């Protein structure tokens, strides 16, 4: 699905990531952990073409990201669902319209039943007509997840998805991500919350990667 080979990324004269090789196979579940500022978000952005590596190669669905034009990148993003900690919506559209947005921009019609099912899956059925500003932190994250998966993407990237929500809500969100993985989706979650990782490993076989000293390494048994 996504493959990084000796990837480096520099910004402002300094190297943020160095010599990173990583393979996200179809149906795999990965955690990406490390201290704040280690480069987790940067690595996530490299995975969906929001940033280009300064060295090395990144292949997404078999294509080198450097060889993709802007339309190709847009097509990649339709196959990669992204959830950010600081999730952004179109504030003038209600929750259901925001969740349908990937379908809207790709010219696909949203079938009512699918949307209702998805809204029910993330527990937002009764918030469908609310505006994003009216949602709580947990509701925003669940709406973001629904938006990320409405196109049935092959890969779901979640960057600190539980950062702004309480424990109970983060467990609920995690269960949704595990369900997605069981449906065959590749999942990569960036988090510094080790308890979240431990809770997940009870349900699914997950690889834990740690970014340290600009490099990615497989985390040890302490997790």
């Amino acid at each position, binding site marked *: 699905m996504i493959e990084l080979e000796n990837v480096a990324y520099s910004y402002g004269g300094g190297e943020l990531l160095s010599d990173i090789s990583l393979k996200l196979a179809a149906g795999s579940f990965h955690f990406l952990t490390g201290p704040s500022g280690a480069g987790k978000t940067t690595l996530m952005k490299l995975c969906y073409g*929001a*940033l280009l590596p300064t060295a090395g190669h990144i292949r997404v669905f078999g294509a080198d990201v450097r060889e993709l034009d*802007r*339309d190709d990148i*847009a*097509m990649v*993003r*339709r196959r990669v669902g*992204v959830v950010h900690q600081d999730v*952004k*919506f*179109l*504030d*003038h*559209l209600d929750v259901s*319209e925001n969740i349908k*947005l*990937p379908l*809207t*921009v*790709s010219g696909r019609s949203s079938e009512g039943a699918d949307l209702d099912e998805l809204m029910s899956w993330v527990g937002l059925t009764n918030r469908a007509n609310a505006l994003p500003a009216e949602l709580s932190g947990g509701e925003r994250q669940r709406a973001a997840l629904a*938006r990320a998966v409405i*196109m049935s993407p092959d890969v779901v990237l979640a960057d600190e998805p539980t950062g702004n929500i309480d424990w109970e809500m983060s467990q609920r969100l995690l269960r949704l991500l595990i369900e997605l993985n069981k449906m065959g989706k590749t999942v990569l979650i960036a988090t510094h919350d080790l308890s979240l990782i431990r809770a997940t490993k009870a349900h699914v076989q997950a690889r834990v990667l740690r970014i340290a000293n600009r490099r990615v390494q497989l985390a040890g048994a302490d997790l």
Partner: protein
Amino acid sequence: MKLDLKVLQALRAGDKQADRVVPPSGFTAQLTLFAAAAMAFLAVFALALSLASGRLAQRWGDELGRTATIRIVAPLDQRAAQTEAALRILETTKGVAKARALTMEEQQELLAPWFGPDLKLDQLPVPQLIEVLEDDNGLDPAGLRLRLSAEVPGAILDDHGRWRLPLVQAASRLRLLGWVLILLITATVAAMITLAANAALSANAQVIAVLRLVGATDRYIAQAFIRRFTLRALSGAAVGTVLAMFAVLLLPGAQSDAGFLTGVRFQGWHWILPVFVPLLSGVVAFAATGAAARRTLGELS
């Protein structure tokens, strides 16, 4: 990103969902509407001015270009004989359709604005005037001058070229000025809409970021802005054009004795031309917003 026929088709067909992704309000909406309306109003007047100047140049050119005047400056006792001689020459001159000596009353009428109605011409050394109307081929002024100088020593031919040319040039310059005004107005519309589109694109940076995150192509995002600005410019310009046409309609119609200022109103099929002003505004808005969107989106990762 390319802006081609597909974009135009999408613009025409519309997409309610796509229209909704860009927030509907904002000061740029009012700015675009007002600028398009005001510029269309001015453009219609510039068009009317240009067309009126064109008509004037043509009329002056036609009327003066096909007439000439012969002045017989001779002592009173020879004036009639020389006039007769000049008329005889004119009868056999190629290119002359008609020639006649002005009557005393007609000459008196011509001079009345300067000397009053009680002027006695037979007591003054006023030259006898002969009006010459040319046929479609036109006459040869140099040849006629030679014949007149040989046979009618007191005859002076004036083919009006000396003062016709500056008048026609002045009217032509006015016409050119009208077109320059329309060009300037078009450029101003483009500049205003580019500014408004840039402001809208900047104000909606988060909207664009979200759209790109969920897989929107540059074309899709640009189209949402292009459609909105083009429709705003079209509707604003349509309002401005209708108001301007009413204003032009209220101007006095062309009167032969009232000069240039009474002839600015559109005539005949020219009334259709202002319809193109909103269309031009739409095209300008389409191009300006497209260029602004291409530039802004190209700068984003």
